């Protein structure tokens, strides 16, 4: 118990430090966390209205885009932050008793908390502007978000070790995951595309995370393309692989 409290203390100290260094010295540093996903939604809206189509699903286009962009960002940011936790902080990891896992926990929690703040602001704004109705099943959305976070953490753990042992992995991971933004059903409805294409896209765990998150917001949204067990299997497998890699590579990580 005492050891656990000590680790929490370490991660807490690192979290505060990360919060200060990541936002940079600029005053709007923290605002970027809100501006970035909103700019994505704005671009999609502009493109959508420009080609003047009907909303992919339901009456609110904005809500559809937001419930697509945000779970994707949760996964993407956590995986990115955790992935760079070891490589990007060699010096502080040399401080006695700061372990790579402390840094990983600090960065994951910071990315997760930032996301919670962003989504809370957006939901309150949308409710106030009466663009959306209250989510029909907030608990579903919360559960989906938790699993999306865990997927980001699992993938990030694998990246953290891989990136610090093999510097090319940064680029390979970038190339591999670039298409995820397109293939995760963020700006189109995966229910409305040909079924053989659906089959191939259904291999992407982030797609299921997005689909699951959306079911929390709309009562009339039911989809054939949602395999909850598949997403959970990915979460467990990536966490297991990531933690094992971290442990196996431990002597080579912080002290090189």
């Amino acid at each position, binding site marked *: 118990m005492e050891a656990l409290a000590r680790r929490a*203390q370490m991660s807490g100290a690192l979290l505060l*430090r990360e919060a200060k*260094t990541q936002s940079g*010295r600029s005053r709007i540093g923290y605002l970027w966390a809100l501006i970035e996903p909103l700019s994505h939604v704005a671009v999609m809206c502009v493109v959508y209205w420009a080609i003047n189509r009907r909303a992919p699903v339901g009456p609110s286009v904005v809500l559809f885009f937001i419930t697509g962009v945000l779970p994707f960002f949760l996964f993407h940011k956590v995986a990115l932050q955790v992935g760079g936790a070891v490589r990007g902080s060699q010096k502080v990891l040399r*401080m*006695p*008793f*700061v372990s790579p896992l402390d840094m990983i926990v600090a960065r994951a929690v910071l990315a997760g908390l930032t996301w919670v703040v962003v989504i809370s602001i957006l939901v309150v704004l949308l409710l106030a502007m009466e663009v959306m109705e209250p989510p029909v099943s907030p608990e579903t959305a919360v559960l989906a978000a938790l699993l999306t976070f865990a997927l980001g953490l699992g993938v990030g753990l694998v990246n953290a070790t891989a990136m610090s042992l093999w510097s090319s992995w940064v680029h390979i991971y970038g190339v591999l995951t670039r298409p995820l933004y397109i293939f995760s059903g963020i700006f189109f409805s995966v229910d409305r595309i040909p079924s053989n294409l659906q089959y191939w896209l259904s291999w992407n765990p982030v797609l299921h995370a997005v689909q699951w998150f959306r079911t929390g917001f709309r009562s009339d949204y039911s989809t054939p393309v949602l395999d909850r067990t598949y997403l959970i299997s990915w979460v467990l497998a990536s966490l297991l692989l990531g933690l094992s890699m971290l442990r196996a590579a431990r*002597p080579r990580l912080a002290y090189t």
Partner: protein
Amino acid sequence: MIELRNVSKAYGHGSNRHVVCDALSAVFDGSAAVGILGANGSGKSSLLRMIGGMELPDRGQIIRSCRVSFPLGYSGGFHPTLSARENVQFIARLYGADPVEITRFVRDFAEIGSHFDRPLLTYSNTMRARVTFAMSIAIEFDVYLIDEVSSVGDVGFKRKCLAALAERRRHAGLIMASQSAANVRRFCDTVVILDCGQLHAFHSADEAADAYQNRIAVTDA
């Protein structure tokens, strides 16, 4: 007490391989002042970093049953874009010390005025040394590690540091690495020599200092 069991450490590969510790075993009493003498490149600093937990040995174990400081003046935990205040708070939290109390101590000790709240990257070397040194003795450790005492900035500040260190020394042990026998003799009751990956012990500090001087004389000739 700090115990080294069969500690081995080497850097580089092949013909560049440089052995710092070769199956080294030793026990450091937590309350004593121990000096480690060694020529340039003998691995004193690496040994000190391993004792402090900043570096892992290739093989063997280091067992610490007390709170060991980071080497005095070590700046690895400092982030250049954060101010001295923010950095000091971070390190205090890391060690479970009271951030308010530690910040006050460092601010008063370092005497760098309003620079204390500016980013570290705007500091001169002297200012940085003042902050990192003040940080090192702000927290109460059981054993303090010192790598080459002469590395502490300007003369006036150095005198102040030595006084503060002597004060801490009353309740804490000391492990000091140096190239200079005179420095080590001023502070330490026990002196050992690090040479070819082994520690050599002596009956008295004077005897060790003499042996060290002779060794240097031999290698120089």
